[in-house]
């Protein structure tokens, strides 16, 4: 599969996930509507269909979807300013009077090169993060809020071509609007979970007061959904995140025109990650409390994170390298 098909296929997956979220949202809303107003008291499915045909106005569904649309609108309209501050981060572009090392100048150059290759028309802000761990992340989707950050470990340990590939991957996240997508999905998931939770509590406490079998079934379903939806939305979100990673890898190949640098970079980064894990362990840090890079950002915006299962933000390095047309020895 070449990078064009790769991007297309993962775009389809994104649409599928978004559609699933919308369907879940409508189902929850309609169930609540049935509890309040069972049009056909004996049949749940007929009642729900009746709401869809607008035989009665589905108030709850309307409110839930409007709140989501409002949230999405606010995010799109006002966005949020992403800035990295603190001693951990150093802004590399736009330094007033400060001096940059040769490597730092190269990083700024590479970000500019990639933004030219992507035809973005603007340069994202560039940051360096003071840690020996090798990683990078991106956030934002427009001139005002886009940024790319690389760690010092990454900068010093990868050669120029490999750094270029990593930066291209991060630029890929920016041009695909992955931060925005994450925010949207976050809004949808939160609206769904919050409302399901409220409905479930109401259904639990005022349960069984008439309304026929349709309303009772709807109540029961809401209570069950309240238990399973947190897991389902999480799995969907992570599935989305992993497919966006493949897309960013594909974008890196498109922007640079070479897959080998990306493969080499991934191999080096995963090697470094194992090493750091070992180091932390031997230094006596608790396993579960690994400090994560860019904690304020979605994990998926990083170049690397351990992963392999349906519970990870990133695909495994092996899968990623294979998608890039490379091969890794076990």
């Amino acid at each position: 599969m070449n990078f064009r098909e790769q991007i297309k296929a993962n775009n389809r997956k994104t649409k599928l996930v978004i559609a699933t979220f919308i369907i879940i949202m409508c189902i929850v809303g309609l169930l609540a509507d049935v509890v309040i107003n069972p049009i056909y008291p004996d049949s749940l499915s007929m009642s729900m269909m009746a709401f869809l045909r607008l035989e009665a106005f589905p108030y709850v569904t309307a409110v839930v979807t409007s709140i989501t649309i409002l949230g999405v609108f606010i995010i799109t309209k006002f966005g949020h300013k992403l800035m990295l501050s603190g001693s951990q981060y150093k802004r590399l572009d736009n330094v007033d009077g400060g001096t940059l090392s040769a490597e730092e100048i190269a990083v700024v150059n590479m970000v500019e090169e990639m933004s030219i290759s992507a035809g973005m028309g603007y340069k994202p802000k560039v940051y360096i993060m003071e840690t020996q761990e090798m990683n990078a992340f991106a956030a934002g989707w427009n001139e005002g809020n886009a940024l790319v950050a690389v760690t010092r470990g990454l900068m010093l340990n990868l050669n120029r071509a490999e750094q270029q590939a990593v930066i291209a991957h991060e630029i890929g996240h920016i041009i695909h609007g992955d931060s925005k997508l994450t925010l949207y999905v976050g809004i949808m998931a939160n609206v769904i979970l919050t409302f399901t939770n409220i409905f479930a509590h109401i259904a639990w406490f005022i349960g069984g007061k008439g309304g026929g079998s349709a309303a009772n079934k709807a109540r029961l379903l809401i209570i069950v959904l309240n238990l399973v939806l947190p897991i389902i939305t999480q799995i969907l979100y992570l599935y989305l995140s992993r497919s966006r990673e493949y897309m960013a890898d594909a974008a890196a190949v498109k922007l640079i025109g070479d897959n080998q640098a990306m493969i080499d970079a991934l191999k080096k980064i995963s090697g470094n990650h194992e090493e750091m894990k070992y180091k932390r362990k031997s230094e006596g840090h608790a396993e579960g409390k690994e400090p994560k890079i860019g904690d304020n950002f979605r994990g998926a915006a990083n170049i690397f994170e351990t992963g392999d299962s349906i519970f990870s933000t990133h695909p495994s390095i092996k899968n990623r390298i294979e998608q890039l047309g490379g091969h890794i020895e076990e």
Partner: protein
Amino acid sequence: MELIVILVIAVVLAGWFILTYNKFVQMIEAVTNSEKEISVQLDRRGKVFDSLISAVKKYMDHEQGVFAKVTELRSQAKQGNALKDGQAHQAEDELSKIISSGELTSSLNLTMEAYPELKANENMQQLQEEIVSTENKLTFAKKAFNNAIEAYNVKLKSIPDMFVPAIASSLKKDFEYWSLNDEEVEQAEARRVEF
């Protein structure tokens, strides 16, 4: 009822037409803009290289001057010492013996040859990075241009988007990909790195 259905279909079609039209306009502008980016980068390359190379050259000349001056001054100083005091010559001989015997070599060298800090090497490295980056920027600008044309051409030729330019002919453009012509390709093929 039928009227409503027809109306809905008409609105959807009109909406699709407008969105696709705008998308075409956007893509054409993207091609034009990335074409301009190539000339911007070409211009930048010329200017950056000229000014950087002359700056580095100037610095190298300056440092060469420093080197020559240091050597000259040292030999003068030696001569002066020898003329004033015959013993100085003798002492220097002994010093040479110590140095050539291998003892103390490193420490003596260090104190005797404390040159001013030289920066030409660093400058050359910076120049190298600037050359790589500038050439990359030019290459990626060409790549972006070709990518923009590709995206436009794909849209122009796919169904159902192709119906929009069929109606609005101003959207039909014949862009040419950036590439070397046959002669240049042959020349570039024949080029080898020689030291």
